[in-house]
């Protein structure tokens, strides 16, 4: 696959945002994922060429961050936090149950290509534990049942809305484009901070 002139010009516009070309490596990797769903060899070669880096240097970055996928993931990539707090609050149980429900293990994708599963590390939302992220959108205070419903909905093309963030859940590729810095115009949609996060602030405002 080779990139279209439009895609190249988007890449150029991303590069133009930085004083030094090489700084654009991370958004470009997301951009590649927004096109192919994962970091393809063509993507690595193109980024290396555009940023005047070696392909090895691009590989080093793309393999370091777990957000960059060496293999295709599902249209809905479900990350279940299994770090300490979420795990004890139910994350481990959710992971096991959903894994069994879907018949896939960690880092695997359902045959229909709709859902993939990942044990993720802390996403800075411990106050909503157990937390699940789908395509990096928050699903707070989850239960085994809510996540089963979530993945079932996702597989039929009808996933529930995230707790915070946009009103409808976007696909992996769509959100990868957002991470590449290309706005989908939804940044203002839905709540960004929830009750638990604002509790302390509200208490202090009330003078308590």
């Amino acid at each position, binding site marked *: 696959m080779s990139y279209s002139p439009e895609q190249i010009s988007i890449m150029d516009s991303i590069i133009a945002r930085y004083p030094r070309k090489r700084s654009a490596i991370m958004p470009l990797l997301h951009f590649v994922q927004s096109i192919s769903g994962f970091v393809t*060899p063509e993507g*690595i*070669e193109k980024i*290396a060429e555009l940023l005047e*880096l*070696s*392909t*090895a*240097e*691009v*590989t*080093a970055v793309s*393999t*370091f961050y*777990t957000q960059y996928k060496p293999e295709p993931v599902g249209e809905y990539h479900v990350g279940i936090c299994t770090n300490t707090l979420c795990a004890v609050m139910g994350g481990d149980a959710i992971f096991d149950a959903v894994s069994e429900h879907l018949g896939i293990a960690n880092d695997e994708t359902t045959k229909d290509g709709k859902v993939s599963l990942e044990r993720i590390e802390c996403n800075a939302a411990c106050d909503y534990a157990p937390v699940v992220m789908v395509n990096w959108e928050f699903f707070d205070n989850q239960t085994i049942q809510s996540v089963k419903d979530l993945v079932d909905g996702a597989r039929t093309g009808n996933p529930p809305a995230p707790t915070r963030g946009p009103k409808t859940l976007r696909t992996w590729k769509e959100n990868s484009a957002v991470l590449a810095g290309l706005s989908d115009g939804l940044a203002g949609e839905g709540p960004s901070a929830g009750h638990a996060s604002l509790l302390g602030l509200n208490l202090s405002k009330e003078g308590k």
Partner: protein
Amino acid sequence: MTPENAVMTDVEMVTVVIDGFDVTVPKGTLVIRAAEKLGIQIPRFCDHPLLSPAGACRQCLVDIEINGRAFPKPQASCTIPVENGMIVKTQLTSEVADKAQKGIMELLLINHPLDCPVCDKGGECPLQNQAMSNGRSESRYEGVKRTFEKPVSISSQVLLDRERCVLCARCTRFSEEIAGDPFITLNERGALQQVGIYEKDPFLSYFSGNTVQICPVGALTGASYRFRSRPFDLVSTPSACEHCASGCSMRTDVRRGKTLRRLAGEDAEVNEEWNCDKGRWAFKYISSKERIAGPMVRGEDGELHEASWPQALARAAAGLKGKRAGVLVGGRSTVEDAYAYAKFARVALNTNDIDFRSRLHSDEEAVFLASRGVNFNVSYRDLDKADHVVLVDFEPEDESPIVFLRLYKQVRKRGLKVTTLSPVLSRGSEKLGAAIVEDIASISGLSEKSVIVVGERAAEVIGQFTSVVKLAQSTKAKVAWIPRRAGEVGAVVAGAIGNLLPGGRPVADPAARVDIASVWGVESLPAAHGKATWEILEAAGDGRLDAVVIGGVDPLDISSEALGQLLGASTFVLSLEISHSAITAIADVVLPVAAVSEKSGSFLNWEGRPRFFEKAIADSLTRSDLRILSMLADEMGTPINLPSSQAAAKELQSIGEWDGAKADAPSVSPATLTAPSGDQAILHSWRQLLDLGTLQNGEPNLAGTARAAHVLISANRAKSLGLSNGDLVKVSTARGSITAPAQIGKISDSAIWVPRNSIGSQCIANLGAASGLVVTVVKA
């Protein structure tokens, strides 16, 4: 006070206490280095004095306090610079530091396979050694170790065993910082972190072998040395590299008469601690099947037959005595051998027809070399300090790799300005950030702190040496001549060229001839201007010479006619060679000579710095060229009395440098080139570092990393020919053609470039020329 001292006193010094001892070091010195000054060795893996600090392995932890305030936990001594008031306690005086180091060692060993008995590094391994000196004697780890497939090849010559890697990042830092080839990186993270390449792009760096040498464990190994020996079975001899004029100091490791590996030696002034892969791995030629075992004489039947030394020498003497003979010396002679050839030509053959230039050459070049004398007064240090370096017909990465590394170091460190006079921006030039200039007149910004480096290919451009000298005179810039081969500078000094006697004495100067005649104990020396290589060949071809003595020359390095010229006439050919070649195939007498590892001697690198080496293969019975020439001269009744390289070196030294007038600088006006049109282009080429050179024979792993032949063309030419990268292009002359994949790159629209002597692209054999010629370029 010398300027160096002046610099020393300018440096701010800092005194610190390490393990109770005061040590005063320049500000900015790392704690680990300051400790070394006291003889205190802190264990380390990632630390390397020539690489930027990384703090990657944590093995060098020490306790530090500054002005009474202690760091809360041990610190990596390889990343912390000394400060006034600093008190350092190493493992020798601090239990905390000692325990921390032992803890780190234990962690490093958790996933280490401990397969020392089958590891090349075993016996010379910093991990093995420091695990003994600074680790626990028994492992407490009972879990399952992480395993990786072992080994994987990251190029045809470097193997990676990830299980053994301690993630010190020495190899990756070297590749990026020193070689400018960041083709290996630390990939993945956490427990899976590993060194790797991008799957489709192997580690093709001319300097890759250095990573094998500096890897502090057996994670990187050389394919050619793997499983061949244990370090304690090797006998090591300091040596010098015979491949190029950079002049690397080397170490040759021999086991039972066989060279098993060569390593970069340390010489801060020259190669620091590095070398190139050719110097490291191209040594198998000495054990090739083509090696000549004993003297050979051509019989009545037209075939070569083995002969005894007395027979062969008698036959050679008969072919040369009283005859009109010329001498061609290969560019890889040692100074001592070149001196023997120079003396042999004058004393035994009574001629100045001798030339070491077994490549394209010109009279202008010979005049340039004579006018320069033998005290070059330019060195690596001048490159280090230069404000501007101009490369004229010289590609350092391919033609003198350590010069490239030195330039690259300054480019990285302080943005050294580099300009290259060339129609091509090579990969090396690109790494140097070089500005491309096509016309010497448009080079500006030179001062007395600048260096103009002129390569041997300047001889292929009429008037180039003249222009270089003029440019240097008008700007006061220094001029360095850097030929490609290791023996050429020494050959100039030894007088192995038609216009110079030893020590830079002009043949044309009667006083110079008297000088040398008296040292050599002969009445007089021939006064006629000696012929150049091409003239010697021509004279051999048309019968003006009766005989030619040839030492280590590949005729196809000179011209496509050379062999025919030698063959055509009834010229007597004496060949002194290591291995069978095109020349031995036509020679009347073949005398086998010793390779570098089988003799002692020296080269002069481009600075004129002697690079001595000792005989590495102690029991070799082969004889050096000078020994053989000496025997032959005796046989002819005109002795040259050079029984050993020591004798030759001593005699040459006693002759010393010429203090009389030097030859005038060349004055040749440049030729005006006709601009090519349509499908035509001007041919441009040079030899890539790794190519079909005969001294690289017998080492397929090395050859596997050579850059493949391609035709470099400009984007405009590609467009007009309808070519994309990788499409085949045919470059042809009346003589023949080269067909190779196109590579669109930075090259002038009127030029094309092909490698001069690579697989599928041998300019002289295929095209009959190597540069400057108008060729036809079409889509194949």
